[in-house]
């Protein structure tokens, strides 16, 4: 009670009188030390705590008692010191390990705490998970993780201690240091005789964290280990996919205004294609070959402009994707799009109808198929039928394709009734553009502009001309098209903000004129401050000014 009331002098008097009767009671000494400390008599307190220990220096409990009192007074460093003394006093260097680790972590002595946890691990080798969970309480901090890593490295030296290596790898992964983790994982794999299994598991995690370079190396080494036969195809596919991602990262040709030319793309992505081909050879008619065919088909269609090749690849996917219905439906959809690009709308429609009828098609795949069927009607000038199909998708506004369907539907509604012939020519030009026949599409669009200057779709036609010219690398011509739209349709077009944005992009990525690009983005903000593109324009300006985003 006196302690609670901070009546320290009376408490000291009471404890001293008790000690006179029981001078060897460590509890009384420890408590007296505590009161003396709170009364500001630190030297006397220290002497009293020493006396407590002196009552029975060979008993670990004495040190525990004094350390607990010190910790209660928030003297954590001194409590740790008492435990260290206890080790010497009892002649047992492994005593108080967890107590010390906890105390040292509480005083941010992360190296010391890690040392103690490693001591615990060496005494209890089966408790790796326990030690890891304790370390995890502090390794959220960078400084703690660094300290722990250094201590483990020091303890490891040149030894091949599996537990320490596992801790080291875990810490490196926690810090997203995948390269370091990989080096450790190699040792673990070799030491544990995992034959690549450890490396494979690591590669999967690294790929999941988008650390593709390290993932690719880890997959490669796992494959070369060699990995067990049942995991090998997974590793081979993972490796090929990681290489594909790395090659996409290295694709500096692609820009918002123009894709990578096929002449550049073929060698660029060739490595990944060869890896997928080899998987097809080695694991024919399996999910791995089906997925590999799909990846090849994707590259052929979107990067290489090889539509015939893509059709063949995708046919393989459809044949081999048996247990993977979503892969089969995705491949069928892509096949349809490739057929459109080949100008074969009949085959394209067949593909899309297959997906529409497929009971296992996901809602998004189903909606896309309906949308593409609507597009085919539009290309063929069957506008009413197109609008009917698009209307079905817009019922659910949360659907992925609702927006595309609404946009095309509104465009058809605006033009089909008033300028059907202009719309027919416009859609024909769009169909040509979809086939990559830009040089044929542009004159058709220009003719629409000339022949129907009052048609609502004239500005859309100029926008399309600009986009086609830009994608063909004709940046000056593209800029002129956008400028023309901005000059001639300033009063009537609803595409002005988009035209200014596209023009700025042409300057930024096409003609590489940053000052003009910035000025054009700024003009967009001044002319159309409420444009949906304003946010992106602001971001681009800051990018051009070299500001961190």
């Amino acid at each position: 009670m006196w302690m609670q009331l901070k009546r320290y002098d009376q408490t000291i008097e009471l404890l001293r009188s008790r000690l006179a009767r029981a001078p060897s009671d460590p509890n009384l000494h420890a408590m007296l030390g505590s009161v003396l400390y709170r009364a500001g008599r630190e030297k006397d307190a220290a002497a009293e705590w020493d006396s407590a220990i002196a009552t029975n220096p060979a008993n670990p409990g004495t040190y525990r008692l004094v350390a607990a009192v010190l910790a209660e007074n928030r003297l954590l460093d001194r409590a740790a010191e008492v435990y260290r003394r206890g080790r010497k006093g009892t002649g047992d260097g492994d005593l108080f390990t967890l107590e010390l680790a906890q105390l040292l972590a509480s005083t941010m002595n992360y190296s010391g705490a890690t040392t103690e946890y490693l001591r615990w691990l060496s005494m209890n080798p089966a408790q790796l998970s326990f030690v890891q969970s304790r370390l995890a309480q502090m390794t959220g901090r960078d400084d703690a993780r660094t300290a722990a890593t250094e201590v483990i490295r020091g303890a490891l030296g040149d030894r091949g201690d599996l537990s320490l290596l596992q801790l080291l790898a875990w810490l490196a992964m926690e810090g997203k240091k995948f390269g370091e983790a990989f080096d450790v994982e190699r040792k673990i794999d070799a030491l544990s005789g995992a034959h690549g299994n450890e490396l494979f598991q690591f590669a999967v995690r690294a790929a999941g964290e988008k650390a593709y370079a390290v993932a690719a190396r880890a997959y490669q080494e796992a494959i070369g280990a060699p990995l067990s036969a049942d995991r090998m195809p997974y590793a081979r596919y993972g490796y090929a996919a990681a290489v594909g991602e790395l090659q996409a990262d290295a694709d500096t040709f692609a820009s918002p205004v123009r894709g990578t030319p096929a002449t550049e793309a073929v060698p660029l992505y060739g490595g990944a294609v060869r890896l997928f081909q080899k998987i097809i050879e080695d694991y024919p008619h399996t999910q791995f070959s089906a997925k590999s065919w799909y990846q090849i088909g994707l590259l052929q269609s979107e990067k290489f402009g090889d539509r015939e090749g893509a059709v063949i690849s995708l046919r393989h996917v459809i044949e081999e994707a048996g247990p993977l219905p979503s892969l089969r439906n995705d491949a069928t959809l892509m096949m349809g799009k490739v057929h459109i690009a080949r100008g074969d709308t009949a085959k394209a429609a067949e593909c899309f109808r297959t997906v529409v009828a497929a009971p296992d098609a996901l809602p998004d795949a189903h909606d896309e198929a309906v949308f593409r069927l609507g597009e085919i009607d539009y290309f063929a000038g069957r506008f009413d039928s197109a609008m009917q199909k698009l209307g079905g998708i817009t019922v659910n506004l949360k659907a992925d394709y609702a927006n595309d369907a609404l946009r095309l539907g509104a465009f058809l509604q605006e033009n089909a009734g008033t300028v059907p012939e202009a719309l027919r020519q416009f859609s024909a030009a769009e169909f040509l553009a979809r086939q990559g026949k830009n040089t044929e599409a542009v004159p058709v669009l220009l003719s629409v502009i000339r022949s129907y200057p009052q048609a609502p779709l004239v500005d859309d036609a100029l926008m399309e001309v600009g986009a086609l010219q830009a994608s063909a690398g004709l940046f000056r011509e593209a800029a002129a098209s956008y400028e023309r739209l901005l000059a001639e349709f300033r009063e009537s077009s609803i595409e002005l903000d988009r035209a200014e944005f596209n023009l700025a992009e042409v300057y930024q990525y096409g003609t590489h004129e940053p000052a003009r690009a910035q000025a054009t983005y700024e003009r967009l903000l001044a002319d159309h401050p409420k444009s949906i593109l304003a946010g992106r324009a602001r971001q681009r300006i800051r990018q051009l000014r070299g500001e961190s985003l």
Partner: protein
Amino acid sequence: MDLSQTDHLKAYGIAYMALSRGLEIDWLLNYRGGSFMLDAHDFITTECLVRGVAFIRESAAVAASVYAEVQREDNNMDVVRLEKAPRVAVYVPPGFQPWDDAVTLALDYAEIKYDKLWDDEVLDGKLADYDWLHLHHEDFTGQYGKFYASFAGAAWYQAQVAQLEQEARKRGFRKVAELKKAVARAIARYIGAGGFMFAMCSATDTFDIALAAENTDICDAIYDGDPPDPDFQRRLDFSKTLAFTGFTVEKNPLRYEYSDIDEPPSDMLGVQNPETDYFTLFEFSAKFDPVPTMLTQNHVNVIKGFMGQTTGFRKNLIKTSVTILAEKQGTEQVKYLHGNYGRGTFTYYGGHDPEDYQHAVGNPPTDLSLHKNSPGYRLILNNILFPAARKKQQKT
């Protein structure tokens, strides 16, 4: 800056940038929700476009008519000239904290530069280099935010305790509470010497409690290793506080509450209904009370409430010298207050995050690009520009 402003928060950043570049700004108090008038330089208009801040370019004649309207005797408006970008400091601990700070969020979003200070800088007298100081979710009582009951085992809590104990020892204090009291006194001296202090959430009441408890120990053993002074309540010295008087310090070390200043108390927050929780800004005479008018500039005068460890302030515990700027009508809760201390001023704003009704430990920070027109955040930014105002000559 009425409802037509596209980004109220970044508008303050534009004003700050202009001041930083040596331009003068007229703050047109109460004109269209409080507006800024400055010379039309191209770099300003471009920056407004880039940051998405709406502006109107007016001719000299129109500008003159605006000034005339603002200064008309029968309009509750006035002009305050802003001359110099205030040097801004935020009192924030180094390292990670599992909660965000509404002011640093607002400053970052508005692109207003600031420095971070902590105990060492405050005790070493660095505050003198700044015009404006902000305190947020800090605990000046030395009870580590009173998170013990809920988070004693959490790594971040233990690291915070260890860090503060180390700092205290390094500066020669036996207890963290003593360190924090010294910091509070240093901040009070800074205000007294002419500084501007803005505090939110628990920094408000704990600051006053720490000043009042200068000569007593209010911390339980679980915080500082020894029991509190059994007579601490009687030993509180309310003459040392800034805003509050006669309050009762919470004795239960496990209760997430410091005193009875907080209204409603933290353990009553569950009964609050966010749908009906609003506070109202008081209207002041712009021509006679320019300071509170500046601090309450807004495009709305009823603002949705928000909680915090300290959500609001009990009205009957506020010193009579303090100006109440906003309150929750029909209750005892004051949300926003302002007062003078020596040659400086202080502003207290209750709650944690104006756009996150109940911001919990570990929640992600609020994305202010989704709250560009936040009236609650706007009040914070009024305080940033307030020190830039030129003091009017007093009539003799």
